């Protein structure tokens, strides 16, 4: 049993933290949060140049040949610096799905462009019912003229407003078991009939409504086989869930670091507030939450990286980390007091992201349902 990161992973962790600390200061974060696009093309190009966007893709497709575990290390650094932008959508939701389910032609068509930073993607799965099950997919894809025509509305789609392609999950067959009638399509976001509306969210992440009004999709843009798209979706969701946990671990660590630094310098009653037990105990609780989150997240990420069954561990990680990140940011706010309640201060940037991250891909209650099923209750 070896619970440490490799030397290369440690190097990636430090270099990513340092790079983002320099290239993605909070001033840029706020700017991007308020912008429509939500990312900096210049920074995006730099990350592509570092091989980050192609990190988990094989070298034959222009990637860096890294593992999913390597990606988790990178995502933790991104979470620490709360890097805005479509990295998660493009690499995890889009790229890894094409890698897992695409045919050779699709992989050659999409992955190199993704890796070089020339293509942004996202997954259009959830609908107004805001659920992650196959029965909730009402958007349809019907056969027409040798291709397909998609009609329906997707909601809470990350980064659709800047995406070049949307991985759209649609119903292609009416079946007793909804999971047997789902197909995923690669849809050009600029296709006629696609209408994207940016939502205004708590975390300023670019979640969108995407409506499909008889959008034509060529046959060669079907991902995997007809009616066999749900296992593909399940695969994405598992990876996305634990990838989001890795980001959350980074964010929680940052909140802890900020709060501790402040507690050491803020003076009230003639002493640093960090000398009061109430504050010390908050910080100690934050340590348990952050470390525990890191341990269960990396265990789940390792299992996913090794291709081992990971359903239980991923659900454990998401349930715990989602709640922990929220607790940590709440305590952070308590430690900062009134100044933390100002827009100018940074802690609320983490507090907002904690909630958004907890919710996406299924909140604690949803994950506990999975755990209960895995426990055979």
């Amino acid at each position: 049993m070896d619970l440490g990161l490799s030397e290369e992973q440690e190097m990636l962790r430090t270099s990513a933290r340092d790079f983002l600390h320099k290239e993605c200061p909070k001033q840029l974060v706020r700017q991007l949060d308020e912008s429509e696009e939500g990312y900096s093309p210049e920074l995006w190009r730099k990350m592509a140049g570092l091989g980050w966007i192609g990190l988990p893709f094989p070298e034959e497709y222009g990637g860096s040949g890294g593992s999913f575990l390597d990606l988790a290390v990178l995502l933790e650094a991104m979470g620490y610096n709360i890097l805005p932008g479509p990295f998660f959508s493009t690499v995890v939701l889009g790229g890894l799905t094409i890698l897992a389910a695409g045919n050779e032609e699709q992989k050659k068509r999409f992955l190199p462009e993704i890796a070089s930073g020339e293509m942004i993607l996202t997954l259009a799965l959830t609908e107004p019912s805001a659920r992650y099950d196959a029965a909730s997919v009402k958007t349809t894809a019907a056969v027409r003229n040798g291709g397909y025509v998609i009609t329906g509305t997707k909601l809470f789609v990350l980064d659709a407003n800047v995406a070049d392609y949307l991985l759209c999950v649609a119903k292609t067959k009416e079946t007793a078991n909804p999971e047997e009638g789902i197909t995923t399509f690669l849809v050009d976001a600029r296709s006629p009939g696609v209408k994207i509306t940016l939502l205004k969210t708590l975390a300023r992440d670019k979640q969108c409504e995407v409506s499909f009004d008889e959008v034509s999709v060529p046959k060669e843009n079907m991902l995997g086989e007809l009616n066999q798209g749900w296992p593909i979706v399940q695969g994405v969701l598992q990876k996305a869930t634990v990838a989001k946990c890795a980001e959350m671990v980074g964010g929680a660590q940052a909140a802890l670091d900020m709060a501790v630094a402040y507690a050491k310098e803020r003076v009230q009653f003639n002493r640093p507030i960090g000398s009061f037990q109430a504050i010390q105990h908050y910080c100690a609780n934050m340590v348990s939450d952050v470390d525990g989150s890191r341990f269960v997240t990396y265990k789940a990420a390792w299992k996913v990286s090794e291709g081992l069954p990971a359903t239980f561990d991923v659900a454990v990680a998401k349930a715990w980390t989602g709640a922990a990140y929220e607790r940590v940011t709440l305590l952070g706010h308590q430690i900062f007091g009134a100044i933390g309640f100002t827009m100018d201060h940074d802690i609320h940037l983490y507090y907002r992201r904690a909630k958004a991250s907890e919710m996406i891909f299924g909140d604690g209650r949803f994950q506990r349902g999975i755990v209960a099923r895995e426990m055979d209750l």
Partner: protein
Amino acid sequence: MDFRLSEQEEAFRREVVDFIEKELPANWTQESLYWPGGYGTIPDFEEIDPRIEKFRHQLAEKGWLAIAWPEEYGGTGRSHIEQAIFHERMSYYRAPGPDVGTLISGPTILRFGSDEAKREWLPPIARGDIRFWLAYSEPNAGSDLASIQTRAIEDGDDLVINGQKTWSSGAHTSDYAWMAVRTDPSAPAHKGISLVIVNNKSEGITIRPLINICGTHSFNDVFFDNVRVPSRNIVGEKDRGWYYLMVALDFERLVVPIGGFRRTLEELVQYSKETGNGQALSRNPQIQDILAELAIEIEVASTFFWHTAWMLDRGLVPNIEASVLKLVSTELSRKLASTAMEVMGPYGQLERSSKWAALGGRVCTGYLDCISALVGAGTSEIQRNIIALRGLGLPWS
């Protein structure tokens, strides 16, 4: 990074399980009232059942009371991960065997004792021939351990000890006190303490039972009236005891019955599947939610447990990590009890001897014992102080 056990680790685990299943007295797992994380239901602290002695010596014969110790002192030279595997499985069966000597005194002597002390104490500890009890707390020195008053004055080649220890778990079932005494009253509190080994049979020692809230005689008040002990029984250097104590406390905090949590959860799950009025409790979504939450917390605590073992194998010293592990696992002890009560409803309040008692009355006793989990070996508040002050460097004043 690799969470799998190596072939060697896997083989050792199988060996441990085979041994326990064969040699642990029949029904022990079900009869034991031991609540994971609690300090009031540890069997050795109450009385030494002959079956415990026998099993302990069988373990000792295999070197399993001292797995990660060097072979020259009675250990097997295996890794800390393997030692953790042993403890995880042992606790899963609620199996007794290790004691304060094997878990705390021995490792501390290994770290700080003279070669002479190692040769004198480690082999009998590893053989399971002697038991130690922790003589730390006093009526006026609980969380503030450095304020202990028990005096040890030099007289020739001996120390003469006067004072009182309290909350002395297992003093009445052990052979030696692992004792913190003040050897230099003129020095600042932390700098005048020594760690000394005292034979229970020494003249002048009076043990007075205390009954804990579980109704068990697990701990005591112990009075020392001019008790003589050879000065060579001082562990390490005189007056440097505080620093050894801190390490001994870290060792104590690493002892977590992580398998015991899993076992109790399994029993609770089984109970919820077999109990219900028309519909099994386990089919109730609210019960499912709280059982899942408990399972998640056990997974989290488990990762802390393995992490500290891995650290030890890397030559790293789990210091703040020991406090985090203790904090997390003892709070879990409490969570386990409260979840069990929620699941069992009124049946949870029935003691073992009562008609209609379920799960052997373990939850009722455990609900009481988990109070000690948050208080013994350093309260949760003290653990948080350590994490904050030593770990995060937050200021004292």
